[in-house]
Protein backbone atom coordinates (compact mmCIF):
# COMPACT_ATOMS: atom_id res chain seq x y z
CA UNK A 1 0.00 0.00 0.00
CA UNK A 2 1.15 3.53 -0.65
CA UNK A 3 0.60 6.41 1.73
CA UNK A 4 1.58 10.06 1.92
CA UNK A 5 1.63 11.95 5.20
CA UNK A 6 1.69 15.71 5.56
CA UNK A 7 1.83 16.30 9.31
CA UNK A 8 0.95 19.99 9.23
CA UNK A 9 -2.55 21.07 8.20
CA UNK A 10 -1.66 24.73 8.63
CA UNK A 11 1.63 26.60 8.39
CA UNK A 12 2.00 30.33 8.88
CA UNK A 13 5.20 32.30 8.28
CA UNK A 14 6.19 35.90 7.70
CA UNK A 15 7.31 37.23 4.35
CA UNK A 16 11.02 36.69 3.88
CA UNK A 17 11.21 33.82 6.37
CA UNK A 18 12.26 30.31 5.34
CA UNK A 19 9.52 27.77 4.88
CA UNK A 20 9.52 23.98 4.93
CA UNK A 21 6.47 21.87 4.22
CA UNK A 22 6.93 18.31 5.38
CA UNK A 23 6.02 15.20 3.46
CA UNK A 24 6.69 11.57 4.37
CA UNK A 25 5.70 8.60 2.29
CA UNK A 26 5.30 4.87 2.51
CA UNK A 27 5.87 2.75 -0.58
CA UNK A 28 7.59 -0.57 -1.07
CA UNK A 29 9.11 0.16 -4.47
CA UNK A 30 10.71 3.19 -6.10
CA UNK A 31 8.13 5.96 -6.10
CA UNK A 32 7.97 9.20 -8.00
CA UNK A 33 7.19 12.14 -5.75
CA UNK A 34 5.45 15.38 -6.63
CA UNK A 35 4.34 18.60 -5.06
CA UNK A 36 1.07 20.07 -6.31
CA UNK A 37 -0.18 23.55 -5.41
CA UNK A 38 -3.65 25.05 -5.41
CA UNK A 39 -3.86 28.83 -5.22
CA UNK A 40 -7.10 30.45 -4.13
CA UNK A 41 -9.86 29.92 -6.73
CA UNK A 42 -7.50 28.09 -9.08
CA UNK A 43 -7.17 24.48 -10.08
CA UNK A 44 -4.63 22.04 -8.77
CA UNK A 45 -1.33 22.34 -10.64
CA UNK A 46 2.04 20.66 -10.58
CA UNK A 47 4.73 22.61 -8.74
CA UNK A 48 7.64 20.24 -9.03
CA UNK A 49 8.63 16.57 -9.19
CA UNK A 50 11.66 14.90 -7.78
CA UNK A 51 12.98 13.47 -11.03
CA UNK A 52 13.35 16.95 -12.49
CA UNK A 53 15.56 18.15 -9.65
CA UNK A 54 14.66 21.72 -10.55
CA UNK A 55 13.69 24.79 -8.61
CA UNK A 56 10.28 26.26 -9.38
CA UNK A 57 9.28 29.66 -7.98
CA UNK A 58 12.22 29.34 -5.59
CA UNK A 59 10.95 26.03 -4.18
CA UNK A 60 13.08 22.89 -4.03
CA UNK A 61 12.43 19.40 -2.74
CA UNK A 62 14.88 16.56 -2.27
CA UNK A 63 13.87 12.95 -2.11
CA UNK A 64 15.40 11.29 0.95
CA UNK A 65 14.89 7.57 0.56
CA UNK A 66 16.46 6.78 3.93
CA UNK A 67 13.95 8.95 5.75
CA UNK A 68 11.21 8.39 3.15
CA UNK A 69 10.69 12.13 2.97
CA UNK A 70 10.19 14.74 0.26
CA UNK A 71 10.05 18.03 2.11
CA UNK A 72 9.36 21.24 0.17
CA UNK A 73 11.58 24.20 0.99
CA UNK A 74 11.94 27.84 0.10
CA UNK A 75 14.52 30.13 1.70
CA UNK A 76 12.50 33.35 1.52
CA UNK A 77 8.72 33.05 1.46
CA UNK A 78 6.62 35.55 -0.51
CA UNK A 79 3.01 36.52 0.06
CA UNK A 80 2.07 35.03 -3.31
CA UNK A 81 3.22 31.63 -2.04
CA UNK A 82 0.12 31.45 0.15
CA UNK A 83 -1.77 28.40 -1.09
CA UNK A 84 -2.68 24.79 -0.39
CA UNK A 85 0.19 22.41 -1.03
CA UNK A 86 -0.22 18.69 -1.63
CA UNK A 87 2.50 16.10 -1.70
CA UNK A 88 1.76 13.18 -4.01
CA UNK A 89 3.27 9.87 -4.98
CA UNK A 90 2.88 7.43 -7.79
CA UNK A 91 4.33 4.02 -8.23
CA UNK A 92 3.60 1.07 -10.44
CA UNK A 93 2.53 1.13 -14.02
CA UNK A 94 -0.63 3.17 -14.08
CA UNK A 95 0.62 6.42 -12.60
CA UNK A 96 -2.35 7.05 -10.36
CA UNK A 97 -1.47 9.60 -7.72
CA UNK A 98 -1.76 9.14 -3.98
CA UNK A 99 -2.06 12.50 -2.24
CA UNK A 100 -1.44 13.69 1.27
CA UNK A 101 -4.11 15.70 3.05
CA UNK A 102 -2.41 18.97 2.21
CA UNK A 103 -0.84 21.87 4.09
CA UNK A 104 -2.32 25.35 3.93
CA UNK A 105 0.55 27.82 3.81
CA UNK A 106 -0.10 31.41 4.78
CA UNK A 107 2.62 33.99 4.26
CA UNK A 108 1.95 37.10 6.29
CA UNK A 109 3.21 40.55 5.28
Amino acid at each position, binding site marked *: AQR*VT*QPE*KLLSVFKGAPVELKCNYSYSGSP*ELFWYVQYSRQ*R*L*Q*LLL*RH*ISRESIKGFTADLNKGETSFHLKKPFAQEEDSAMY*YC*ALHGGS*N*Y*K*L*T*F*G*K*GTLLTVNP
Partner: protein
Amino acid sequence: GAGVSQTPSNKVTEKGKYVELRCDPISGHTALYWYRQSLGQGPEFLIYFQGTGAADDSGLPNDRFFAVRPEGSVSTLKIQRTERGDSAVYLCASSASYNEQFFGPGTRLTVL
Protein backbone atom coordinates in the same frame (compact mmCIF):
# COMPACT_ATOMS: atom_id res chain seq x y z
CA GLY B 1 -4.42 25.95 -25.35
CA ALA B 2 -7.54 24.87 -23.52
CA GLY B 3 -7.06 22.96 -20.31
CA VAL B 4 -9.16 20.20 -18.83
CA SER B 5 -12.76 21.26 -18.44
CA GLN B 6 -15.48 19.79 -16.26
CA THR B 7 -19.20 20.30 -16.25
CA PRO B 8 -21.20 21.17 -14.32
CA SER B 9 -19.10 23.19 -11.91
CA ASN B 10 -21.69 22.63 -9.21
CA LYS B 11 -24.36 19.97 -8.87
CA VAL B 12 -26.93 19.76 -6.12
CA THR B 13 -29.09 16.67 -6.02
CA GLU B 14 -31.29 14.77 -3.65
CA LYS B 15 -30.44 11.51 -1.97
CA GLY B 16 -31.28 8.59 -4.19
CA LYS B 17 -31.00 10.47 -7.48
CA TYR B 18 -28.71 9.68 -10.40
CA VAL B 19 -26.00 12.14 -11.52
CA GLU B 20 -23.53 12.39 -14.38
CA LEU B 21 -20.34 14.42 -14.26
CA ARG B 22 -18.49 15.23 -17.45
CA CYS B 23 -14.80 15.69 -18.16
CA ASP B 24 -13.24 17.08 -21.35
CA PRO B 25 -9.51 16.32 -21.32
CA ILE B 26 -6.77 18.18 -23.11
CA SER B 27 -6.87 17.24 -26.78
CA GLY B 28 -4.58 14.34 -27.56
CA HIS B 29 -4.18 13.17 -23.97
CA THR B 30 -4.69 9.44 -23.90
CA ALA B 31 -4.70 9.00 -20.13
CA LEU B 32 -7.61 10.26 -18.04
CA TYR B 33 -8.08 10.06 -14.29
CA TRP B 34 -10.95 10.72 -11.89
CA TYR B 35 -10.31 11.68 -8.28
CA ARG B 36 -12.63 12.58 -5.42
CA GLN B 37 -11.76 15.20 -2.83
CA SER B 38 -13.73 15.30 0.37
CA LEU B 39 -13.56 18.26 2.75
CA GLY B 40 -10.20 18.49 4.46
CA GLN B 41 -8.69 15.65 2.45
CA GLY B 42 -6.40 15.36 -0.51
CA PRO B 43 -7.72 14.01 -3.80
CA GLU B 44 -8.36 10.25 -3.78
CA PHE B 45 -8.02 8.15 -6.91
CA LEU B 46 -11.17 6.65 -8.38
CA ILE B 47 -10.47 5.36 -11.89
CA TYR B 48 -7.94 5.59 -14.70
CA PHE B 49 -8.55 5.30 -18.44
CA GLN B 50 -5.98 4.60 -21.10
CA GLY B 51 -7.77 5.35 -24.33
CA THR B 52 -11.30 3.97 -24.18
CA GLY B 53 -10.70 1.29 -21.59
CA ALA B 54 -10.71 1.55 -17.82
CA ALA B 55 -7.23 0.31 -16.99
CA ASP B 56 -7.68 0.62 -13.23
CA ASP B 57 -11.00 1.13 -11.43
CA SER B 58 -9.76 0.02 -8.03
CA GLY B 59 -10.63 3.34 -6.42
CA LEU B 60 -14.34 3.26 -7.18
CA PRO B 61 -15.96 2.95 -3.73
CA ASN B 62 -18.83 0.64 -4.75
CA ASP B 63 -20.95 -0.43 -7.69
CA ARG B 64 -23.02 2.74 -7.60
CA PHE B 65 -20.08 4.46 -9.28
CA PHE B 66 -19.32 3.90 -12.95
CA ALA B 67 -17.33 5.80 -15.56
CA VAL B 68 -17.08 5.61 -19.33
CA ARG B 69 -14.90 7.06 -22.06
CA PRO B 70 -16.45 5.65 -25.23
CA GLU B 71 -14.38 7.49 -27.83
CA GLY B 72 -11.18 7.91 -25.89
CA SER B 73 -11.75 11.59 -25.22
CA VAL B 74 -14.65 12.86 -23.10
CA SER B 75 -15.39 10.87 -19.96
CA THR B 76 -18.50 10.70 -17.83
CA LEU B 77 -18.58 9.66 -14.20
CA LYS B 78 -21.97 8.26 -13.25
CA ILE B 79 -23.29 7.88 -9.73
CA GLN B 80 -26.48 5.96 -9.06
CA ARG B 81 -28.68 6.22 -5.96
CA THR B 82 -26.60 9.06 -4.56
CA GLU B 83 -25.93 9.20 -0.83
CA ARG B 84 -25.03 12.16 1.37
CA GLY B 85 -21.56 10.68 1.77
CA ASP B 86 -20.98 11.11 -1.97
CA SER B 87 -20.83 14.88 -1.47
CA ALA B 88 -17.36 16.00 -2.53
CA VAL B 89 -15.42 17.72 -5.29
CA TYR B 90 -14.86 15.38 -8.20
CA LEU B 91 -11.66 16.11 -10.09
CA CYS B 92 -10.65 14.97 -13.53
CA ALA B 93 -7.08 14.98 -14.82
CA SER B 94 -5.51 14.07 -18.13
CA SER B 95 -2.00 13.21 -19.14
CA ALA B 96 -0.02 12.62 -22.31
CA SER B 97 3.33 11.62 -20.97
CA TYR B 98 2.43 9.65 -17.83
CA ASN B 99 4.35 12.22 -15.87
CA GLU B 100 2.38 15.39 -15.43
CA GLN B 101 -1.33 15.18 -14.82
CA PHE B 102 -3.29 18.31 -15.69
CA PHE B 103 -6.31 18.85 -13.49
CA GLY B 104 -9.67 20.34 -14.25
CA PRO B 105 -11.47 22.79 -11.97
CA GLY B 106 -13.63 20.07 -10.47
CA THR B 107 -17.35 19.50 -10.00
CA ARG B 108 -18.69 20.18 -6.54
CA LEU B 109 -21.41 17.61 -5.84
CA THR B 110 -23.79 18.18 -2.96
CA VAL B 111 -26.26 15.46 -2.04
CA LEU B 112 -29.07 16.72 0.17
